[in-house]
C-alpha cells in the first residue's frame, strides 16, 4: 500500500522536474544502452560465426602440415632457433599412401576424407565471358568425399562420376548465378557445351559443363550479391593436373568423423598417427589437427571475453550514472527537508521515510533503465543491420539490465534516504 503511494509520489516528483529527472537518468540510460547494444551485437556475431562454422561442418577435423614448434625441437635435441627451419618441400607433404593407411587404421571413425585444391590465387579473379558479359569465377577441385559431404543441389545435368574423378577429366559444374548472368538462366544452353575460364594472368582452361549447381551465398562473402564470385567445380585430379601437382602430396585436408566419434580425443589420435608413423624423423615439419568443435569453442570464448570486457567498460558509466542519481537525491532531500519534517510530525516513521526515498531513486533508475534498453536494442540492431546481418536481442541481458538498474537505485539511493530518515523532526520542520 505504501509502495504504490511512494511510486506515485516519486512519479509526480519526476514530472515536476522533467529536465532535471532526464539529466539524472542520462547516466543510467547511456550505461544500460551501451551494455545492451554490446550484448546485442556480440550475441549476433556469435550466432553468425557459429552458423557459418556449422555450415563448414561442426564435426570436421582439419589436418595440416605445420612447422615443428621450438619446444619440440629442443626436446629432440635439435635447436635451430625461432621454430623456423626451412621451407616446405614436396617430401614433407602428406602422401596418398599416408591417407590410405590413416583410413585403414580408423575405418570406423572416419566418414569422409575431404581434399580440395584451387586453381590460381583466391584473390585474383578469373572470368567466364559470353556475349560481352563477364561472370567472376574461381576454379576449385574437390574429391568425391568432399562433393558428397558438401551435397550441393544439382539444378540441371549431373554431378561428377567415377571416371571424372579417376582420370581427372576436363569437366565442370557451374553455378546457377553464372547461368543466370551469361545464359539468361537457361541451364540447357550451357550443359554439354564447353566454357573457357580466363584467369587474370591470361592463362585459360577449357571445361566441358556437365551440370549446374545451386549457389548458396556464405555469410562471409557479403557485399557482392549482384555479381558474386562463384566456383567452377572440377574433380580434384583435374585441378591437380592444371596445377601440375598430380603426383605431389597434400598440405592440408579435412576429415569428417562418424557421429559416435569423440572429436576431442580423435584429434589427438590423428595427430599422433601421423607424427609417430611418418614425421618422427622430419627435422622441420609435423602434422597438426584441430576439430571445428574446439575452434568454435575457443572462438566463442574469445567473443565472450571481448563482450565481457566491453560490458565492464560500459558498466563503469552505469556506476557514474548511479553516483549522479545519489547526488540528485541528496539535493532533493535538502530541498524537501521541510516536507520530511512535516511527514515525521504526521507520524511517518524513519523506515517509511527511508522507503519513500529509496523508492524514488529506484523509480528514476528503472525508468532510465527501460529507456536505456530501448535505446540499446535499437542501436545494437542498427549496428548489426549495418553489418548486413539479422540482429538477435538477448532477452537475458534485458532482464539483467532491469534488475541491475534497480540494484543501482537501491545502492545509490540508500545513503541519501537514510540521511533523510535520520533528520531530526524539529530541525526539519524549522528548515526554510
Amino acid at each position, binding site marked *: *500500500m*505504501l509502495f504504490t*503511494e511512494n511510486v506515485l*509520489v516519486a512519479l*509526480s*516528483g519526476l514530472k*515536476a522536474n522533467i529536465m532535471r529527472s532526464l539529466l539524472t537518468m542520462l547516466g543510467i540510460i547511456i550505461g544500460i544502452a551501451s551494455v545492451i547494444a554490446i550484448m546485442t551485437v556480440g550475441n549476433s556475431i556469435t550466432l553468425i560465426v557459429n552458423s557459418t562454422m556449422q555450415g563448414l561442418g561442426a564435426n570436421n577435423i582439419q589436418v595440416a602440415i605445420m612447422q615443428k614448434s621450438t619446444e619440440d625441437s629442443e626436446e629432440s635435441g635439435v635447436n635451430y632457433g625461432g621454430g623456423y627451419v626451412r621451407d616446405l618441400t614436396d617430401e614433407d607433404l602428406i602422401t596418398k599412401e599416408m591417407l590410405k593407411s590413416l583410413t585403414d587404421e580408423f575405418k570406423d571413425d572416419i566418414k569422409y576424407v575431404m581434399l580440395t585444391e584451387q586453381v590460381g590465387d583466391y584473390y585474383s579473379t578469373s572470368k567466364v565471358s559470353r556475349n560481352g558479359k563477364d561472370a567472376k569465377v574461381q576454379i576449385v577441385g574437390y574429391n568425391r568425399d568432399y562433393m558428397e559431404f558438401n551435397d550441393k543441389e544439382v539444378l540441371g545435368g549431373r554431378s561428377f562420376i567415377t571416371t571424372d574423378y579417376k582420370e581427372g577429366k576436363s569437366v565442370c559444374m557451374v553455378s546457377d548465378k553464372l547461368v543466370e548472368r551469361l545464359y539468361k538462366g537457361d541451364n540447357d544452353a550451357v550443359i554439354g557445351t564447353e566454357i573457357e575460364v580466363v584467369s587474370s594472368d591470361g592463362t585459360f582452361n577449357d571445361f566441358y559443363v556437365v551440370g549446374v549447381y545451386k549457389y548458396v551465398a556464405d555469410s562471409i562473402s557479403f557485399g557482392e550479391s549482384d555479381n558474386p564470385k562463384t566456383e567452377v567445380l572440377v574433380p580434384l585430379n583435374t585441378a591437380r593436373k592444371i596445377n601440375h601437382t598430380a603426383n605431389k602430396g597434400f598440405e592440408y585436408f579435412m576429415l569428417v568423423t562418424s557421429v559416435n566419434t569423440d572429436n576431442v580425443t580423435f584429434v589427438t589420435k590423428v595427430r599422433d598417427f601421423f607424427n609417430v608413423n611418418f614425421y618422427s624423423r622430419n627435422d622441420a615439419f609435423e602434422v597438426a589437427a584441430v576439430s571445428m568443435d574446439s575452434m568454435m569453442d575457443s572462438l566463442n570464448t574469445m567473443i565472450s571475453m571481448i563482450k565481457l570486457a566491453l560490458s565492464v567498460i560500459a558498466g563503469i558509466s552505469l556506476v557514474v550514472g548511479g553516483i549522479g542519481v545519489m547526488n540528485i537525491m541528496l539535493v532533493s532531500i535538502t530541498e524537501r527537508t*521541510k*516536507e520530511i*519534517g*512535516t*511527514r*515525521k*510530525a*504526521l*507520524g*511517518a*516513521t*524513519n523506515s*517509511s521515510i527511508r522507503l519513500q526515498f529509496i523508492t524514488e531513486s529506484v523509480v528514476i533508475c528503472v525508468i532510465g533503465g527501460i529507456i536505456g534498453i530501448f535505446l540499446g536494442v535499437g542501436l545494437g540492431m542498427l549496428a548489426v543491420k549495418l553489418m548486413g546481418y539479422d540482429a538477435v536481442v538477448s532477452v537475458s541481458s534485458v532482464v539483467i539490465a532491469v534488475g541491475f538498474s534497480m540494484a543501482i537505485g537501491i545502492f545509490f539511493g540508500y545513503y541519501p534516504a537514510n540521511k533523510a530518515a535520520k533528520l531530526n*523532526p*524539529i530541525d526539519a*520542520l524549522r528548515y526554510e
Partner: protein
Amino acid sequence: MAENTMLDLRNIHKSFFIGTPNEFEVLHGLNFTVNKGEFVSIVGQSGSGKSTLMNIIGALDRPTAGEYSLDGIDIEKAKDHELSALRNKKIGFVFQTYNLIARTTALKNVELPMMYAGMGRQERMERAKMLLEQVEMTDRMMHKPDELSGGQKQRVAIARAMANDPAIILADEPTGALDSATGRLIMDIFHKLHEEQGKTIVLITHSPELSRETQRIITLKDGSIVGESAGSWTGLNAKEGE
C-alpha cells in the same frame, strides 16, 4: 493523575547544547495540566520558550528533565517509533506555515496521516472527503497546495490534523500568516471542533488578543509560567449574539 487529564507536565526542563560551554536552559521546570475537552492557549513573546514547549507537547522533542504524559502515556520513556505512532494517532498538528505536502492534492494531504496509520485506501479516501467537507473544502479537494489561498490551505491542514481523530490538536500560530478576516474564519473552525466535537485544543500564540478567545490562558515568559488566567470566550453562538 486525574481521569480527565489529557496533558500532564511536571517540572519540565529543556536545555540546549548540553555538555558544551554554550549550554543554556530554555524551560525552567514547567508544571501544568490540560484537561480533556479543554481549549487552552499558551501565550508568550518570541524567545519565551513557547516553540520549545510546543515541540515537547507535540512529542517532536524530549524534555531534558521532568515528566510528561499525554493521554496517560509517558512520553519520556517512549522509543522513537513509539513517538512516531503517538504523533500519528494522538496529536493533530496545525502549523503557521500550513506545511502541506507540495505536488499532492488536498485530498491526498488529508489522507497522509491515515496512510501512515495503515488505513485502507478506500476507507481513508472516504474519511478524508468527510473531513474536507467539515472545513468546507469539498469543491477544492483535487487542487494542489499552490492552487489554494492561505485560508484554504489552513483549512486543509486542520482537516489533516483531524485525520486520525487525535486526542489533542496542537495549533502553532495558526492565524499568523493570515489576514484578520481569514484568521477569524480559522479560529471559528477551532471553536466549532471544540464545542461540537469536544476536542482538546492547545493554541500557541504570541497574541494576547487571540488567547483571550480560549478557556484558559497560560502565559510564558523567559522559560517559566508567569500566570494563568481564564479566557473571556463564551461560545460561538454568544459571539454571534454580541
